[in-house]
């Protein structure tokens, strides 16, 4: 006998049901066979069936059950029986609910799924109506529509008494609406606004909380959101306590924030004491204390910083002032210069005022004047020496040149005469041999550049040569 536990075996979809029924029948057949082979053979089918059921259970939950629950919740909220004539809102809402119901009722997960969007749309419509009409509270809303139904009933009748009763009913409805409106603003609206403010403030201050506190506050905010959707002023009222708790935490944190900001800004100022002129620092400190007092009284820390004092410019200014002074000092030649420069540099590392630098500046003036006086005689002497040097150099060069020229002339003369002797010797030997000396032959024997030397003539008694532009003669020896 087959028993299906519907708490576990939840199959609504027709196609899934058919498939699983087929499988179960096959398994049942094997179970009835009750042999080793039967159970072995059924194991594959059991595997497949478990996959089918797993998939089914997922679809059951997602496509059917979750939508079914949502629709039920909505229908619980819409807890009046509408009577003709329906309002536009009722028309639209109940049409949507009917449509959603029609999808949910079908034994097909894919169709059940289609109800999801419809239900969301219905929920949205309903929520918007509740806020717009201020009928947040379920009981009051129900009361409202009951009275409205009464009015509709009277309206449907066409007699005088019904008309009078209708007026009374409308008055009563009006009073209900007024009371509701008051509650709406006092309870719901005010809580909603406070919650939004608190949420916004919390988001700004997140960094000041540790992880656990953030999580706790977020949980509380989520709880408030749920409470606001609870449809009960009584329950919504209780949420005020939660909002108070969050505000308390935020305030406590705001104080911490203020203290920390003051500490930080004072510390930042302290660190600037050596970086900027003391005069500027004192001015900033005075103004900062005023800003701190204001922040303490207002609780606003947004502008509690050093931005407006443009401290970076002041830091640069001090450096510039000192370096300018040192540059000026460098150009002055003074044995005390290094001491003054050192003093100026020390100011970059210590608390010092502009006045101190001015004092150093005054020290530098006498040095500059003395330097100027000493500068003229020294310059004069130097020039003289230079000119003298140049003159002597030039003179020496000229003398040396002249000497060189003379010596060169003497050298050339000696050489020229020598060449004349050589040519005479060659001519003499030719004559002695009874030959006539050949000028060109004799010239070839002399290794002198052509442009420097020339045999002009060779006669019986005389040799004439030219060397380096000068004529040289030599008488030929007697040939006895």
């Amino acid at each position, binding site marked *: 006998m087959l*028993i299906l*536990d519907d708490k576990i075996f939840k199959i609504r979809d027709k196609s899934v049901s058919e498939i699983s029924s087929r499988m179960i029948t096959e398994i049942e057949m094997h179970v009835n066979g009750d042999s*080793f*082979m039967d*159970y072995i*053979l059924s194991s594959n089918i059991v595997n497949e069936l*478990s996959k089918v059921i797993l998939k089914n259970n997922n679809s059951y939950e997602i496509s059917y059950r979750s939508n079914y629950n949502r629709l039920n919740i909505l229908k619980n909220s819409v807890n009046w029986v509408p009577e003709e004539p329906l309002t536009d809102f009722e028309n639209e809402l109940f049409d949507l609910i009917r449509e959603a119901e029609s999808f949910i009722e079908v034994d097909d997960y894919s169709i059940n799924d289609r109800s999801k969007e419809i239900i969301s749309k219905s929920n949205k419509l309903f929520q918007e109506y509740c806020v717009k009409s201020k009928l947040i509270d379920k009981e009051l809303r129900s009361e409202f529509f009951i009275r409205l139904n009464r009015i509709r009933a009277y309206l449907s009748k066409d007699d005088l008494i019904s008309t009078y009763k209708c007026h009374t009913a409308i008055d009563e409805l009006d009073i209900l609406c007024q009371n509701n409106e008051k509650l709406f603003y006092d309870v719901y609206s005010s809580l909603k606004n406070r919650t939004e403010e608190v949420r916004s403030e919390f988001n700004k201050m997140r960094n000041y909380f540790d992880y656990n506190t953030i999580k706790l506050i977020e949980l509380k905010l989520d709880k408030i959101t749920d409470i606001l959707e609870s449809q009960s002023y009584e329950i919504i009222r209780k949420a005020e306590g939660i909002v108070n708790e969050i505000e308390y935490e935020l305030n406590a944190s705001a104080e911490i924030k203020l203290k920390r900001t003051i500490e930080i800004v004072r510390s930042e100022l302290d660190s600037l004491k050596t970086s900027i002129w003391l005069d500027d620092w004192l001015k900033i400190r005075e103004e900062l204390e005023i800003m701190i007092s204001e922040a303490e009284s207002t609780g606003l820390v947004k502008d509690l910083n050093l931005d407006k004092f443009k401290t970076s410019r002041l830091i640069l200014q001090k450096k510039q002032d000192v370096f300018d002074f040192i540059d000026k000092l460098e150009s002055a030649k003074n044995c005390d210069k290094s001491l003054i420069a050192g003093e100026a540099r020390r100011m970059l590392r210590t608390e010092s005022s502009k006045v101190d630098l001015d004092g150093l500046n005054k020290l530098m003036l006498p040095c500059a004047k003395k330097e100027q006086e000493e500068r003229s005689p020294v310059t004069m002497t130097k020039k003289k020496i230079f000119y003298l040097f140049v003159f002597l150099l030039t003179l020496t060069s000229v003398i040396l040149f002249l000497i060189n020229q003379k010596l060169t002339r003497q050298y050339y003369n000696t050489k020229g005469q020598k060449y004349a002797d050589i040519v005479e010797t060659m001519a003499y030997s030719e004559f002695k041999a009874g030959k006539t000396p050949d000028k060109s032959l004799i010239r070839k024997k002399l290794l002198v550049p052509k442009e420097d030397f020339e045999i002009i003539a060779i006669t019986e008694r005389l040799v004439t040569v030219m060397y380096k532009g000068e004529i040289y003669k030599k008488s030929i020896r007697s040939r006895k």
Partner: protein
Amino acid sequence: MILKPFSNDLGISYKKFQQQNYFILINNNSLKKVNIKGINKISSSNNREFIELSDNDIISRRFEEIPLSSVLISKENITEISNLARSRLEFTDTETHNEITFSELGAVFSIEMFDMIWLEELMSEGHRKGIEIINDTMIFGEKSHLFEKFTVNLERYEKYLQNPSDFALIESIKIETEKIIEEYNGNPYDHFLLALLYHRPTSFQDLTAAKKEFIISRELSAEIENNDLTAMCDMMLAWFAYIEKDYDKAIEISHRALDLEFLSVPEIYFNLSKFYAAKGDSGNSIQYLDEVIRGFDFLYAIKAGIDDDFNKIKNDLNEYISMARDKAKKGIMKRLNNMGIFFTK
């Protein structure tokens, strides 16, 4: 089909058993059991002294024709199991090369298929590596022409298995293989092939010679650590020992094969269980039967149920099957209950 394995208690000699049981190899690697007409044709072609058989002479081996315990299998399952077994042997797809290995066949394997399965197994990774080593060795030893002849012989043998009535073909393969071995006896595959040829129920069947060739093949393959071929040799040597009724030897050799960690031949496990059963050792027999059923193929439970050797441990086997059935049942019921499905009596 799951066929009753040969048993020394079958009342028929091994050769006569072989001569009435043939499979042929079809192109796409299907195996087809030969009918009586084919049996007579093949046996006559391969043995001049063969006397034709009639239907009554054929020993019924199909599990469908053998009564089985209802604890093991109910009547309604017989067709399904039969179809499952057939699907492992016969393939409808004629285009693809279908696998018929020991592991694919499982309990459907029967000893008369051995050569066909071995040829298929040669395509496996383990054997291919071994063959490559042999090929390289023979090339190096200038015997590559002999290796080529070996591969030709394999192809010819495959052809023979497609038409086992061609006795001339198998004879020539035997002669060629012997010549190759004469020239070079270092190829274990040549020896293995020759052993298979001697094992065939032909006029030159010689189980002693087959055993000798398997031993040589085993030694040569063990030298090059070709575990696949070594285990194949052990499987056949264990089988021969069993046929000679040396069950201890059969068991020893089977263990030797398993020690090689050769896990893809379930038949070695089943044979080991069978040899223990033949000895009457139900403890060890059940142990290895359980291993092969759970680890490889549940159909071995049927094969054991129809194997005459297991009759010696029938009570223990039935008890085991009963326990296995109960365990399987418990598992199935638990899973069904988890799904919300309850079967009550």
